[in-house]
């Protein structure tokens, strides 16, 4: 986790100190997109290599999926509700 902070702070320092032109922004966008797809590929690769995980899908899959779906969707619902009230009151975007 500390390395994520270090990298973020290093990036912020570069962004603050350097004048970025259009070319630099385009390069950043290219790096961002390819790095993003590379992370997803590596994530899929790791899952594909994990034989035990794929084998246990049938046995524990229903429990795991139920918890994951409920937590994700209820988080979305709760945050939607909070921001609806917050934005109505504050008149934000």
């Amino acid at each position: 986790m500390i390395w994520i902070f270090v990298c973020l702070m290093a990036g912020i320092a570069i962004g603050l100190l350097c004048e970025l032109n259009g070319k630099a922004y385009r390069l950043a966008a290219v790096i961002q997109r390819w790095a993003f797809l590379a992370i997803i590929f590596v994530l899929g690769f790791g899952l594909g290599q994990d034989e035990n995980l794929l084998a246990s899908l049938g046995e524990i899959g229903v429990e795991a999926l139920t918890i994951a779906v409920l937590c994700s969707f209820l988080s979305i619902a709760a945050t939607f509700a909070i921001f609806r009230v917050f934005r109505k009151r504050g008149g934000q975007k």
Partner: protein
Amino acid sequence: MIGWVFLTLFLGLIAGMLCRGIEIDTSNLSWMILCILTVVIGVKIGAENKKPDLKKWLSYIKTTVFTIIGSFIGTMSGGVAAAHILNMSMNKAMAVAGGFGWYSLSVIILNNLDGAHLGAVAFLSNILRELMIFVLIPLTAKLKCVEAGISSAGATSMDTALPLVLEYSGTDDATVSFLHGTVLTLVVPVLVPLMYNIF
């Protein structure tokens, strides 16, 4: 873009299945790519905040607090609902939910506390939660409330979800995503054993 995301994930899955004999440290590899990506995100944040804007940062903090509250309420209600639906004991369901998508840590904690079965459920459940963000963040960004997608990502909003938020929403929401993930990452190591022991 979402099509590319799933195609890449699928190709990675197939490549992983075909390369089972070969030892590749995927966690180290993704960590290195993530570091490069975080530098790029930092550069963008720095370039867009050359003049310190206190009002803007207060708004980030306010949004982050609301997102964390939403994430917490939703995840805990998810744990309660799952315990009832699955006929599972409340403490186990809440402890699995309390992982907030951080599968590598929750599996270690729950393996030690309860055993291999709950550890495996926590691992798979938190991986599935992480995978779902590839659909949920673009969807919530379309609905003009990407904060809801950030809350569903849980602790992974500071790493895996960060490029997604940046891609679909922008630097402001990426900053909120990072702050949200950081707070939850600090909370998870305490929350998982706490949920297991108090319910």
